[in-house]
């Protein structure tokens, strides 16, 4: 009996060892297709889920494209998502989870408050953060490892303020802003530029992200008799605010930056006529067609472009690092991004400045029949 067992064990060992002796070991197959995990910290659930959906779609599209073309420097990119729910405290836990589980050298992020919350952790762990969805000006130069693929608030705020005060000759504005870092920043940036352009802000009121009722703030705003209502709120809230402003018969134009460019806002009849700014980034036809084919949606906002570009920045940096004979660590990727600086994005080239920001022209438009109609494009040089 014992002899039978011995033979059985030997046979089992031989079967287990066969792939290795024949040169088809699983480890060797994996080594031939090296993988590089990239993190993506997005609002996949909660009040910001609409943004997370668009951002993750563009990220997937870009990653698939990179991998179809042979990967980045021989590495197959794999994106691992974590959900920050638009909450900085959740974001920190999610970011640490990404680091612990996958040790990614680079992470895509969205939202100002989220990006600022994780930036110090990223710097301590030598991880590059590519912000492609938050626009708070405080992110300029906030961390040596932070690169903002999306232009920050200041650009749009300046263009919107000048347009309202000078072109439309609207002398007074009221601001309703989301009570978070991004909202406060957008509000103060608008106020600065609007007053510089000769306008006066009658009142700035805060709102809670995800609230259902904004009538109290709108009533108070109405009592100050502004000539325009400027929103610094996020998608779902913007749609509800537009509806409630109409219900309260504010009777003044409503204006907002590119945060308003979401399906919920386009679908809301009360958004008709809203003045909006957006980053003037027209995607290539091939990208727009592929996006339409995969997701049955038009590229209506800047986020598909910035997240696609974010992935391309990582891929280009990895290629350079590998070509230089180095490993794709966070430090090496950071050095590569700073060395390359100028990247060919899906909507044209962009250049990272020393403070980790990019510039772009800004469109001023109006929402008409569920779409943005561009009225003018403004280039601000700084």
């Amino acid at each position, binding site marked *: 009996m014992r002899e039978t067992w011995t033979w059985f064990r030997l046979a089992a060992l031989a079967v287990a060892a066969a792939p290795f002796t024949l040169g088809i070991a699983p480890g060797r197959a994996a080594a031939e297709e090296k993988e590089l995990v990239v993190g993506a910290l997005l609002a*996949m*659930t*909660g*009040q910001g*889920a*609409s943004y997370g*959906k668009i951002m993750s779609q563009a990220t997937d599209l870009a990653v698939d494209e990179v991998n179809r073309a042979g990967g980045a420097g021989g590495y197959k990119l794999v994106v691992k998502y974590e959900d920050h729910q638009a909450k900085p405290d959740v974001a920190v836990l999610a970011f640490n989870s990404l680091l612990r589980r996958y040790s990614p050298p680079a992470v895509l992020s969205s939202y100002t408050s989220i990006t600022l919350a994780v930036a110090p952790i990223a710097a301590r762990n030598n991880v590059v953060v590519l912000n492609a969805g938050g626009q708070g000006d405080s992110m300029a130069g906030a961390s040596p490892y932070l690169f903002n693929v999306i232009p920050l608030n200041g650009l749009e705020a300046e263009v919107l303020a000048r347009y309202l005060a000078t072109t439309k000759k609207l002398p007074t504005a009221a601001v309703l802003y989301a*009570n978070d870092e991004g909202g406060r920043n957008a509000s103060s940036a608008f106020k600065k530029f609007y007053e510089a352009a000769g306008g006066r802000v009658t009142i*700035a*009121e*805060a*709102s*809670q992200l*995800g*609230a*259902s*009722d904004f*009538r*109290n*703030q709108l*009533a*108070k705003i*109405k*009592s100050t008799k502004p000539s325009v209502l400027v929103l610094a709120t996020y998608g*779902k809230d913007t*749609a*509800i605010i537009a*509806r*409630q402003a109409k*219900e*309260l*018969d504010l009777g003044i134009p409503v204006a907002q930056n590119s945060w308003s460019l979401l399906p*919920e806002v386009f*679908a*809301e*009849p009360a958004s008709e006529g809203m003045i909006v700014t957006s980053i003037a980034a027209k995607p290539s036809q091939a990208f727009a067609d592929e996006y339409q084919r995969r997701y049955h949606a038009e590229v209506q906002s800047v986020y598909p472009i910035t997240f696609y570009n974010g992935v391309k920045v990582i891929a280009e940096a990895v290629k350079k690092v590998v070509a230089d004979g180095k490993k794709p660590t966070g430090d090496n990727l950071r050095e590569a991004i700073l060395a390359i600086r100028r990247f060919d994005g899906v909507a044209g080239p962009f250049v990272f400045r020393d403070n980790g920001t990019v510039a772009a022209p800004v469109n001023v438009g109006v929402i008409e029949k569920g779409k943005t109609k561009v009225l003018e494009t403004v280039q601000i040089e700084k």
Partner: protein
Amino acid sequence: MGLFGQLLANGVANGAAYVLLALGFSVIYNATREFHIAHAGAFTAAGYAGHVVHDRGLGLWGALAAAVAAGALYGFTLDAAVYAPLRRLRASGLQIFVASLGSLTIFSAAIEIAFGPDNLLWSTVPSVLSLGSVRLPAPFAVLVVLTAAVVAGVHLLMTRTVRGYELRAVSDNLELSRGAGIRVPAAFAFAYVLGSALVAPAAVVIGLDAGTNPYRGLHLSLVGIVATLMGGIGSYAGAVLTALAMALVESLGLLVSSSEWTRVILYGLFIAVLMARPHGLLGAAVRGKGAGA
């Protein structure tokens, strides 16, 4: 007068919703002494049921009926599947609270998987009532009337029916209630069904006004919980009046401060009241820890 009138109207309209959330939580908490944070899920369940029925063309009243049924079913299911088994295992209040939190998380995630995370706008845009310069969506006017009727109905239930006597009895003294032959598990189940169904009108009107999503119930439920504790444990009138007062402070507070400060003022008041009157504004002595039905 224009701004004051509008803020007053907003406060009363929001107050009606707060009252229903507070009254629902109060009915459950007073009877069971279980910190039912998953009360937010009743609002969500009622809102989605109302949305589905409304957008199939069955109108506001059809939506309301569906929402009441969904809220009641939610409360019954949670009690039967989670709380009752835990009580039988003599779980502590903290354990029940954690189970409640877990249940809410699971339920919200399930709703999100089933319906998606987006805010679902209802197919009807509500009409607006005008009184001078004051404007209010018509469904909120209906909500104010409905809430008054619900509060009166709950008062009658508590003071004129056997079920109501039982709820008040278990709220006052659990052991004596058992001794008097009251079936405490059934009374608890009834509290969960009733308390959860009460949120339905608020879920329907807020859904009609601003859409339905998986997350909105939590803030409103927290308001309901605070109103119950600040109003006084065991006091339905305290919960109702405090919920209304909270909404009025939120809205009329804007006359003297910015909206950034209204919540600070509100929760500051809450802490001050608890420090001055631990039993709440209209509350009597607390029954004691742990339901243990």
